[in-house]
């Protein structure tokens, strides 16, 4: 018996292996579904809701819903993309995502998604948070004004680095990522530049120091291809 079965994504059959989520199967097959808190090396988190799809007419998160034979999944529809734009707009106004002055520009998943989904304005009133920078660590800088709370750093530090440097604190709109040390400063943890968590932030919140704008415009991750095109091309190359 073959290991492969299929579901329909926007009318096209997608093959999957048992146990894969819809997002994993779609990405592996070269079909992009927008996502932010997903990372192939970590367990699904299901918090950003960018990957929201419709499975047999009902909303679900592509990163958590398992693929099943015969599912009819829609993703690239005006309605779902409209919802995604709203989510992005809310993320943009909740933090300080001032792309022209941010060294992550061109390498930032949030910015790349906003371009790809044609988010033209922030639409909502800016919150303008002013969270102090944590520059205490010799090699890594944190600007939580740009954090989108994907918790990838929390997960990477706990699961890969075995350190638990980051945690989520507060509830609801007040929830935010904190550094797990008595002073709350990164310098007072055993965090290191070589940690997985130092290189996993999809936006410009956790940054290796003194790199800045070393990569010229034109050579950055999303300069040439949109985030969706890039994901699709990677899948083809891996296949």
């Amino acid at each position: 018996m073959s290991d492969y079965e299929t579901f329909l994504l926007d009318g096209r059959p997608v093959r999957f292996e048992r146990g894969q989520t819809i997002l994993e199967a779609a990405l592996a097959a070269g079909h992009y579904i927008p996502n932010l808190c997903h990372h192939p090396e970590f367990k699904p988190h299901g918090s950003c809701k960018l990957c929201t799809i419709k499975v047999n007419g009902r909303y679900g998160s592509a990163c958590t819903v398992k693929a099943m034979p015969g599912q009819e999944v829609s993703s690239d529809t005006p309605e779902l993309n409209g919802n995604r734009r709203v989510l992005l707009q809310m993320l943009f106004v909740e933090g300080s995502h001032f792309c022209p002055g941010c060294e992550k520009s061109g390498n930032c998943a949030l910015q790349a998604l906003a371009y790809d989904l044609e988010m033209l304005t922030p639409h909502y009133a800016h919150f303008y948070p002013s969270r102090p920078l944590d520059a205490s660590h010799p090699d890594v800088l944190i600007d939580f004004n740009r954090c989108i709370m994907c918790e990838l750093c929390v997960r990477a530090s706990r699961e890969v680095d075995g350190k638990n440097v980051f945690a989520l604190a507060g509830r609801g709109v007040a929830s935010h990522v904190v550094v797990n040390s008595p002073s709350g400063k990164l310098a007072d943890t055993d965090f290191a530049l070589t940690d997985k968590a130092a290189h996993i932030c999809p936006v410009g919140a956790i940054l290796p120091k003194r790199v800045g704008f070393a990569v010229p415009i034109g050579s950055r991750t999303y300069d040439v291809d949109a985030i969706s095109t890039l994901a699709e091309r990677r899948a083809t190359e891996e296949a």
Partner: protein
Amino acid sequence: MSRLETAENPQKLKRIAIDPVTRVEGHGKVTLLLDDADRIHQVRLHIVEFRGFEIFIEGRPYWEVPVTVQRLCGICPVSHHLAAVKAMDLIAGYGPLPATAEKLRRLMHYGQIVQSHAVHFFHLASPDLLLGFDSEPTRRNIVGVAQDFPEIAKQGVLLRKFGQEVIRHTAGKRIHGTGAIPGGMNKALTPAEREEIRRDVDQMIEWSLGAVHMVASLHRTKPEFYNRFGEFDSSMMGMVGDDGALDFYHGGLRAQAADGSTIFDHVDYSTYEEVLQEEAKSWSYMKFPHIRALGAEKGWYKVGPLARVQVASRLSTPLADIERKKMMALGNGKPVMGTLFYHWARLIEALHACELIRDLLDDPDILGTDLMADKGDRRGEAVGVIEAPRGTLFHHYRVDENDQVTFCNLIVSTTNNNQAMNEAIRSVALQYLDGRKVSEGLLNHIEVAIRAYDPCLSCATHALGQMPLEVDLVDASGDLIHRARRNMGAPT
């Protein structure tokens, strides 16, 4: 300083305001106080907004600053980019830049000079000069120029575009690029990019030379008017290389008195606070710098094209140097001081920058790939200075051991020219308005004088769009004079 700065009995006088001054970058306002016989008693150029960029930059990591500081102003972002990066080269501990990196930065900077000067002359100033100061106001704009002088308008557009392309190839984008990074440049110039710019440069030199000749011939039509309009004696300052030639990118500071004698020369700009002092006045948010040795009354000075072309001993490119000599000959051995000479000098500089661009493109170093300097010890404090299109631009930073900026002081070109612009409009007010019924055409004479300086009032007030800011203005003893808040009070 002119007696027209402050009237003796302002309550008895009538007030005229030009608000906003048009065809300048940013928002400025002029007020005139006149008595019943229309005699002028007070003239002031006010900067009515204050947006404190320096406060915003505090706390940010130093390597980010050369990019973020460009947001001061969309008019000459490259100037801020380069002044900041020159300071951050030192803060980060880098030694002298490899030849290629410095030449690429120069190329970017000269592109900015051409771009900015073209915009100023063709878009903002030429309507007055070509159509007349008191021509029909609804036609006194670039559209009017394009109708009457289509060839000139076209050259202006293409010169500007040429400058923008030079910037794009060196900085990655036409505005707000990232090319210069502490220690060097992030991108080499490819042979194809070099060819693309090189192809057009001879045409640009020809057109900018033509523009210089056009201003010279305008001058010949009414020499007395051009010589005397907004004429007043002042000191002047600019940056020169070791050989005394004008250097837009790097050198020492030179200041000269109105008679051409030297006040200081080859001053290391990192010691600018020893030679210059900034003073605040209650009626303007823009500070008034002056030369310390001469004091606040006499020590103010001009910067920008007219100042630096004349304080320099020469220009290093042949065509521009000839034109400089022709203009200066009109001073009979003394510097020329008429406000309208700014336009002439500005176009000589555009020509000079085009020639410099050609020379750089013909230099094999420009295609080099050695882009980063060697790194040594970090520093806590540094100053970066360049000659921006509008004049000398100072960026001064302190950075702590965590790499965060703790102090930032900027003296932008327009601030350096603050007193000079005030003197210029007072001089014009006395020449043309005193005792006469005020008309739109006469008031435009005041604006013409301001425009000649190409003031960038948005960057002089450190504008930053709608960024949230809380700004404290403190006096010399540290007492709070004024607190401005905007878009504050959001959740943290």
